[in-house]
C-alpha cells in the first residue's frame, strides 16, 4: 500500500513537472522550431549547480528539442577566467561562437576587435528590450551583444529580524546602532552604490576622476561609522553569503545572481529592497547588463545569433527570472516574484556601467582605497584622493 502511494506520488510529480511552467527542465527559449542550425559552441560562467546554470540548461534543452539540426555545445568557464580565456582564444581565431557575461569587459573587447557588431543583424529584433539594456551593450554607438539581464546590487534582508527595510542611510544607521546587523562585501563593486547617495561622482565627461571633489569621502566615512556601530565588512564573498544565509546577520548588499540560492535557505523570510537613499539622493549601484556576445571569429555567426535571440526571447528571460531570480531586460516579461521586482527597481536607479578605457582603471586604485579606509590605514578623504590620483595617472589625465 505504502509502495503504491509512493509510486502514485512519483507519477503525479512527473505529470506536474511536465505540465508546469516554473521549473528548469520545462521552461526555455521559444525559438521558432528549426531556425537554429549547425554546430554552435556556447560559453557561460555560471557557478556549477547554481540557479542560473539550471535556468540556462532548461532553456537550452528546450531549444535543442525544437531545433534538431543544431548541435549546441555548452561549456562552463569559471567566472574569474571567462574574460581572459575568451580574449586569448578569440584573438587567436578560436573560442566559442557566443558567450554570456556581464558587460564588464565589453569596451576592452570591442577595442580589441574581438566582438562582432550586431546593429544590422539585430535591426527590428530588440523592440521589446528596455533602452537601458540595449545601451548597456553599445560601445561608441554600436551594438555588440544581445541583451539578456540587468545586474545591480540591492539590500537583502531577513524579514524575521528586519520587518521593514531601511529606506534611508540614517534609518540604516539607527537600526545598526540598535543592534541589527549588516554585512557588506569589502570591495569597489559592492560599495559602488553609496557615493551617489552622498552626492559623489566618479568621472567627469572627459573621463577624469573627480571622486575627490566630494561625496565619495562622505560615503566612505558613512561606512566607517557603520562599522563602528557594528556593521561587518568581509573580503570573502562566500563568508558574507554564509553569514546571511545562516541567519547570523540580518542584512546584506548583494546582486540578483544569489537570489535563487538565498531563497533556498531563507524562503519566505527573504526580502529585497533598493539600497537606502542618502542625504543627496538615491544610491547608484553599478548597473550592468548581461548579454550574449558573438565572437568575431565565430564559425557559425548566423547560428550563434539565432541561438542568442532564442535564449533571450520572452520565454527564456521568464525562465531566468523565475528559476534564478534574474531581472529581464525585456519589457514584455512579467515579473511575478516581488523580490525580482525589487531588483528591477534597483537596476533602474543604478549607474550604468561605463565602457570607457578610463573606467577600466577604477578597480585597482579604488579597491585598494576601500581596504585601506575600512581597515583604518587611511582616512576617507586621503584614501579617495590617492585612488583618484592613481586612476588619473593610469589614464594619463
Amino acid at each position: 500500500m505504502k509502495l503504491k502511494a509512493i509510486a502514485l506520488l512519483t507519477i503525479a510529480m512527473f505529470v506536474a513537472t511536465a505540465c508546469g511552467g516554473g521549473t528548469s527542465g520545462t521552461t526555455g527559449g521559444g525559438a521558432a522550431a528549426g531556425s537554429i542550425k549547425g554546430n554552435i559552441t556556447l560559453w557561460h560562467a555560471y557557478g556549477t549547480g547554481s540557479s542560473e546554470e539550471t535556468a540556462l540548461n532548461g532553456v537550452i534543452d528546450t531549444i535543442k528539442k525544437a531545433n534538431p539540426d543544431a548541435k549546441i555545445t555548452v561549456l562552463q568557464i569559471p567566472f574569474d577566467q571567462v574574460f581572459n580565456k575568451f580574449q586569448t582564444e578569440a584573438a587567436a581565431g578560436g573560442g566559442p561562437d557566443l558567450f554570456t557575461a556581464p558587460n564588464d569587459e565589453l569596451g576592452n573587447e570591442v577595442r580589441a576587435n574581438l566582438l562582432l557588431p550586431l546593429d544590422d543583424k539585430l535591426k527590428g529584433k530588440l523592440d521589446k528590450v528596455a533602452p537601458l539594456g540595449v545601451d548597456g551593450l553599445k560601445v561608441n554607438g554600436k551594438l555588440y551583444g544581445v541583451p539578456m539581464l540587468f545586474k545591480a546590487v540591492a539590500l537583502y534582508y531577513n524579514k524575521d529580524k528586519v520587518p521593514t527595510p531601511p529606506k534611508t542611510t540614517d534609518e540604516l544607521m539607527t537600526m545598526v546602532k540598535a543592534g541589527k546587523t549588516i554585512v557588506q562585501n569589502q570591495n569597489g563593486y559592492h560599495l559602488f552604490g553609496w557615493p551617489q547617495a552622498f552626492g559623489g561622482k566618479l568621472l567627469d565627461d572627459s573621463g577624469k576622476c573627480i571622486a575627490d571633489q566630494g561625496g565619495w569621502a562622505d560615503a566612505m566615512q558613512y561606512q566607517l561609522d557603520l562599522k563602528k556601530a557594528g556593521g561587518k565588512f568581509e573580503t570573502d564573498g562566500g563568508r558574507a553569503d554564509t553569514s546571511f544565509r545562516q541567519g547570523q546577520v540580518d542584512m546584506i548588499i548583494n546582486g540578483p545572481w544569489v537570489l535563487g540560492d538565498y531563497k533556498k535557505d531563507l524562503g519566505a523570510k527573504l526580502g529585497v529592497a533598493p539600497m537606502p537613499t542618502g542625504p543627496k539622493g538615491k544610491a547608484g549601484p553599478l548597473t550592468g547588463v548581461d548579454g550574449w556576445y558573438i565572437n568575431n571569429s565565430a564559425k557559425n555567426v548566423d547560428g550563434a545569433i539565432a541561438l542568442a535571440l532564442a535564449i533571450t526571447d520572452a520565454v527564456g528571460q521568464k525562465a531566468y527570472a523565475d528559476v534564478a531570480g534574474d531581472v529581464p531586460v525585456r519589457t514584455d516579461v512579467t515579473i511575478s516574484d516581488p523580490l525580482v521586482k525589487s531588483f528591477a527597481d534597483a537596476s533602474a536607479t543604478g549607474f550604468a556601467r561605463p565602457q570607457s578605457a578610463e573606467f577600466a582603471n577604477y578597480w585597482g586604485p579604488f579597491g585598494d582605497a576601500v581596504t585601506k579606509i575600512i581597515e583604518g590605514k587611511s582616512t576617507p578623504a586621503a584614501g579617495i584622493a590617492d585612488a583618484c590620483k592613481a586612476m588619473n595617472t593610469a589614464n594619463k589625465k
Partner: protein
Amino acid sequence: MAAVIDASIDEAKLAEPAGSKRGRPRWLTAYLYILPALVIMLAVTYWPILFQVYMSFTDYGLRNLRFDAPGANFVGIENYINLITNQVAQIANFNFWGMLAFNLFWTFSNVIFHITIGILIAVLLNAKGLWFRGVYRAIFILPIVIPTLVVATVWKNMFDTDFGAINQALAGIGGIFGISPDNFHIRWIDQVDPPISWLPLPLSYFALLITNIWLGWPFMTIIATGALQSISKEYYEAASIDGASGRQQFFNITLPLLRPAMIPAAMYGMIVTFNLFNLIYMVSGGGPLRQTEILVTTAFRLVNENRLYGLAAAFGIYTMIILLVLTLLTNRITKATESYV
C-alpha cells in the same frame, strides 16, 4: 657470412673521402638528425622568448592581441623603467623592490624551516628500534602527493576567522586557561596591521608560512632519510669508542655527511618556493594590500587581470634575470654541473 659483410662495409666507409659520404660533409648529417628537434624548439621555446623580448619594448595590450591586429607601439625601455620605479598605476601599491625583498625573505624563511624540520624528523625516523617506521614514512609523504590546490583550499578554510579549525583549536586551548573564545577571532588572512609591531610582515605571511612548512618538510625528510641510510655505521661506532656523545656525533658526523645531499635539495626547494604561485594565490591572494604578493603572482595579475602584456613581458624578463642569478649562485655553491665541464 655476416662478419664478412660487416667487414666490407667498414672497408667501404674507410674508403670514403674524409668527412663526407657521396660528397656530403658528416657535420651536415649530424645537423639533419637534430633538425626536427631544433625546429620544434625554435617554435615552442625560442620564438616565444624572442616575442616576449619584443613585447617588453612595446605597449602591447589587448587591442594588439588579435592575429590580424595592428602592431604595438614601440616604447623603448619605458616598461623596464616603470617597473623598477614603481610607476604602475593600474596596480595599487605596486612596489617592485618591496615585492622582491618579500619574495626572497619568503623563500629563505621557508627553506630554513623545511630543512631543519626535515632533518630532525629524518633522524628521529632513523632511530633504532622505532616501531611502525614504514607507517610514519607513508603518512609523512601525504603532503607531497596531495595537489597543492587542495592543500591551499583546505588551509584557507582552516584559517577562516569565524569557522576555521585553527581559531577553534586556539579557542579550545585558551578555554583551558580561562581565556574567552572571543579573543580567538583572529583574522589570519585579512588583518592589515602586522602582529609584531617592529616586523613589517602581515599575519597572512605567518598563515602562509605555516601552510608551506606543512607542505615542504616531507620532501626534505625523504632526501635526508636517503642520505642518512648511506652513512656508514662504522663512523658512529668509531666515534662511540672514542667517547663522542650523541650530540657530538650528530654535529660532527651526521650533519657534515648529510650536507652533499641536502644542499642541492635546499637549492631546489628555494627555486620552488620562490615561484610558489598556487599557495599564495589561493590562500592569501597576495593580500592584504599586496603585502604577500610575490613576483609570479604579480606577473599573473599583470596579464590576467590588467591585460598589460608589454609590461608583463618586461616583468617576466626581470624575473628571469633574478632566477638566472639564483640558479648561477646555486650552481656555484652545489657544483652541480662540475662533472660535465
